[in-house]
């Protein structure tokens, strides 16, 4: 084998080896019915959503160490979205919003149970509400594509609306 070909084969083999180690750690979320348990802790790619200065929803890549279940991952992503941002991005989900619990029913609807902070710290207005709902919907759609809908709760109870405008009484489609 010519020296040049040897180098090429070695480079391809090295690339394959790196891919084997790298990509399993950075796979997309996978939500299969009855399989919410994450298999071991690993870093995962995700996209979280914010508002830019022009009032548009924008996604930003992030990575999280996955929790014991996909439900932990959902909670973790929403928590990241409610951390104060630097660099010109604004929070669609109010800063300091806390998630109490997350669960998914058999119809692929995710129930997100918030502390009252999501209401108390909300900026208000129809636009403010729309941006919050849009950010949550896109977080679910982008990172958990097998979900069909989401339902927002506050302290375990049905939430009529975030700030008195848009109805959140029924399940909201995320696709």
């Amino acid at each position, binding site marked *: 084998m010519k020296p040049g070909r040897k180098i090429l084969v070695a480079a391809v083999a090295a690339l394959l080896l790196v891919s084997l180690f790298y990509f399993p750690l950075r796979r997309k979320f996978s939500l299969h019915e009855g399989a919410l348990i994450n298999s071991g802790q690993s870093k995962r790619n995700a996209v979280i959503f914010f*508002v830019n200065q022009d009032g548009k929803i924008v996604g930003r890549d992030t990575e999280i160490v996955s929790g014991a279940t996909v439900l932990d991952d959902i909670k973790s992503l929403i928590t990241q979205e409610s951390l104060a941002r630097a660099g010109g991005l604004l*929070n669609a989900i109010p800063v300091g919003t806390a998630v109490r619990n997350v669960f998914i029913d058999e*119809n692929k609807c995710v129930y997100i149970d918030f502390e009252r902070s999501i209401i108390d710290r909300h900026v208000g207005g*129809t*636009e403010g509400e*729309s941006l919050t709902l849009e950010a949550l919907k896109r977080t679910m759609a982008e990172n958990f594509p097998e979900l069909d809908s989401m339902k927002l709760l506050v302290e375990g109870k049905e939430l009529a609306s975030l700030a008195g*405008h*848009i*109805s959140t009484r029924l399940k909201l*489609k995320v696709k």
Partner: protein
Amino acid sequence: MKIKILLLLLVPVLLFPDHLKVMKVIIDAGHGGYDGGAVSDYGIREKDVTLEMALLLKKHIEGATEPPITAILTRSEDKFVPLIERVGLANKSEGDLFISLHMNASPTKRDSGFEVYFYDSTGDAETAAVAKRENEQDGSVENKDRNNPLFILWDLAQNEFSKESSGASDIIQSALDGALNRNADTTLKLRDRGVKQANFLVLNGMKMPSVLLEMGFLTNKNDEEKFKKQEFKERYAATIADAVREIRQKFDKKSAAGR
């Protein structure tokens, strides 16, 4: 049973288009009492602006209009009125047009301007589709209800009002754009964000054409400054009142054509 009676009462409304004459306008001042709504950086509260604008609008609607238009307020003081009670009051008063007044807010201070909304039943349809799929799986009673003729009748009624609400929204949006943005006085300028649809709690179940007006952004300094000025607020309310008169004319013409 109560719902069935309510839906049956809608039959004549659907058959006879005379309800379109705007003779009684329900003005809804958003928020109130412990629900302050949005707050500006300088402490101006949405509930106070909406109440002031509602009172001004009532004054301008009832003044110098022949034949007279009656304006009914869902609240005339700083008190909390649940959304469902506002809908109930409007329906019980047999209003011809419902206008809900709000001030907008956004995480970004750049967002500015006014926008007019009418009820979007698409969200309901999507939700109904989800519910239908789920109910088909578990065979629950709710699915049967959604195939009930009365449910379909209710859906028809919502669609009927949707057309009128859309028309009323266009007239209000056009009137505000004309009065604020198409004249020599540049101090009045307020961005026109257009007509939009959303699934509003306060518009759900309305038995009349209904709109929700986000008058401006309390989180935007320029918008907020305008709503501190009495002259601007008077002009704004007078423009909505003019729009209401135009809506009545349009509805009356349509009603006459239907006879």
